[in-house]
């Protein structure tokens, strides 16, 4: 059975799952579907048969130690890397076979905001608006709106190479939000941001989810994940070792109370003896 979301987009219906944040149970659609996803770099397997769905209206936290395969997975979701095997569907479209349709639905914020340094933020947003075939009037409106929200309106005409890291990060997020995507993918979005900007981003992600978008976010800050994410996936050595709400993860780990404990027990934390050895 399929659910018609709008005139063009059809998505596969998925099973009803437990309601999030106290909302009543209702059929939800998966905006991101990873099926047996694999990525090899030569002999090294970076991502190993991952199966995962991220639904509309949820913020999904994707956690894992350094080199676990988070960024590789994210890059395959947004079309930056071609999978070795398996499929990625974004808003029902296969990212390899229907890349244009899939990319129309998604926005991406990379961990390092490598933007065009010789454009201003305003020009960057206009460029992105044109790439996503937005109407000129809507582009202008959206640019002003986003620059205001991210407090970039005063520097919107300055070249990006004069921006601080935090300002570039905000410009990058503004660019990802320009076309009001159904799927927003963020790789470490709060790195290098001041507390106010980090809070702003968290609020925006929450609001996007409440409006029905799917937010797929990686972070190393477990407190953020615990507080902000509806569901959490933990990847280790390229394999998805756990997925679920905080309650489900706690149940899996026999009552471990904090996400940090759960994370460390699933991925293997630093041993005390090793620490003592280093500090001796």
């Amino acid at each position, binding site marked *: 059975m399929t659910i018609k979301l709008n005139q063009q987009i059809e998505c596969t219906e998925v099973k009803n799952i437990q309601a999030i944040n106290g909302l009543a149970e209702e059929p939800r659609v998966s905006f991101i579907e990873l099926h047996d996803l694999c990525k090899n770099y030569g002999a090294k397997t970076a991502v190993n048969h991952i199966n995962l769905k991220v639904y509309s209206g949820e913020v999904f936290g994707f956690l894992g130690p350094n080199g676990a395969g988070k960024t590789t997975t994210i890059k395959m979701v947004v079309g930056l890397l071609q999978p070795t095997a398996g499929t990625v569907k974004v808003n029902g479209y296969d990212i390899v076979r229907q890349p244009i349709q899939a990319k129309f639905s998604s926005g991406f914020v990379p961990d390092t905001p*490598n933007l065009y340094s010789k454009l201003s933020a305003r020009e960057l947003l206009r460029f992105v608006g044109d*790439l996503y075939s937005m109407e000129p009037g809507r582009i202008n409106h959206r*640019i002003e709106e986003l620059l205001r929200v991210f407090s970039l309106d005063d520097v919107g005409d300055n070249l990006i190479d004069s921006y601080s890291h935090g300002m570039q990060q905000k410009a990058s997020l503004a660019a990802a939000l320009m076309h009001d995507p159904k799927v927003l993918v963020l790789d470490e979005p709060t790195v290098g941001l001041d507390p106010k900007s980090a809070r702003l981003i968290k609020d925006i992600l929450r609001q996007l989810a409440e409006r029905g978008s799917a937010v797929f976010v990686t972070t190393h800050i477990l407190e953020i994940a615990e507080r902000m994410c509806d569901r959490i996936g933990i990847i280790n050595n390229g394999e998805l070792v756990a997925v679920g709400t905080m309650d489900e993860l706690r149940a899996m780990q026999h009552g471990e109370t904090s996400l940090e404990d759960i994370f460390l027990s699933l991925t293997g934390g630093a041993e005390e003896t090793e620490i003592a050895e280093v500090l001796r």
Partner: protein
Amino acid sequence: MTTMEVTVGNRSESLRTYVLKLLRLRQVTLVSGFKRARPMIKVLDIGLVLLTVGVAIGCYLLSNAILRELNSPIIVQSGINPAVLMDTVPALVLAAVFILTMLASFRVLLQGLYLARDMDFLVSAPIPIRAVFVTKLLEAILPNFILVLVFGLPMLLSIGVARGYHITYYPLLLVVLAFLSLAAAGISSLLVMAVVRVVPAKRVAEVLAFLGAFLIILVSQSFNLMGDKLENLSADQVATSANLITKLNNPWIPLVWGGRSLVDIGTGNWISGLSFLALTLLLSGAVFWIALGTAEKLYYSGWASLQVGTTRKKNHQSSSHGETNGDSTNLIGRLLPSKVGAIVLKDFKQIRRDLTNLSQVIGALIMGIVFGVMLLRAGGEPLAGQGNAPVQFMAILQSGMVYGSMVIGLFVGWCLVARLALVAFSMEGRGYWILKTAPVSADKLLTAKFLMAFIPSLVLGWFYLIVIATLHKPPLSTILYGLPSIALILAGLCGINLALGVRGVNLTWTDPRKMENGVGGVVGMIISIIYQLVTLVLFFGAPLCFPLLGISENIGMLAGLLAGGAVSLVCTFLPLKLVKSRIATIGEE
């Protein structure tokens, strides 16, 4: 409770030890870079070293030849004393070394002090700050010192040999060179700090790259324009020039003291020589230490890092409706489909605003002007030589000169294509993710990049064709034939170079001048030259040869357009078709 005692090492390592440690770090980086380089790069590096040695030997031989020319009849007729002229040269060469080292060190110090981003690490390490600065200055001097040794030293040595200077001239020459270089680098470090206080370091680097490229091309091409005049100098002109040179060797100018001291010592004027030598060494040493101390203080106090008056002007403003006012490139953007136009506009803005990019393009403009002037100076007549060439050959050559303006237009366009098309994808750099995650098909991306390279090249090629043709006054039919011919040939060049750029794309550059890997550039140049030779024969062969066979030139033009156009169009589309599938995987290496 155990009391942990921390013993602070009381080592009294000298400044020299720290400087050597830091220089060793640079050496390790260089050696490691060479070891890990690709075989082709290693071969090129070794070739460069051999070439440098060859150039040094060449400079020595050339200097000897020039010195022999000083005894030529024209010099004798002009009443110049060759010995006086030769004794002036060391002073002028050392003054030039000082100025050039100061200018060249500026760029290296800008990189070392501001752009390399290792200063925080080094200054916070347990190393005397003086050692850090001395190392930075030495690193700035060393590459320039090698150049001085390659170009300047052979000349100074050959003068010493020719004039039979005393043996002490030779070791003292190296001492004076080293002191002058240190003083120059010291002043340069202060200049860098003063400039960066006003203009951001990155911008300064862009301006320097632009000015450097501009000057190099301007100077090199000036010799083309001046070639005839230099060959036909009169005895009076030579005498005037020689007098001017000798007047520069004025004892009141401190810059020439070093040279004067060497010449005086070389010729046995010991008192005068040693006095000038002492003055040179003391002054250079004092300048170096004062500059070093001041630079340290300015850097450590934060003065050199704090910018003044740099509130950026909103000179790239867009109106509230987002259209950049009065921008001709915007028209192009509006005429094209939204996505293609957006990419073309974005690329134009990036190229225009980055002076480092512009420095790569400026060469095409200057060379076009130089060749245009040379063509006009020839008056449309081929060189007659000794007059033994067959009449038919001279007739073809005469007709060929008519198409000269077309070839210059094509050449200028090619220079631009080679720059823009070859790096059309590489110029995206680490920001390529924006395009790759956007809903843009490979066809649209290739179209946008093609137009980004083709439009300015065509405009420039046509501009040169029309300007030179207006002055040169070829038949109107030739100009009308030239317009589509240039467009088609440039389109083919764009297709070939863009395809090569896709194959050898490099998104990890940090310096825009290193976007394109050397191998791709060489291959691109070879293929482009072959393609141009073939298409030039196809386009212009028939119009030139048909009249000799009694067939109308217009029919020849039509035949040329069909044959050349067909090949050009194939070269426009076929290479792009071959690399289209590669677009999907760019940036995944």
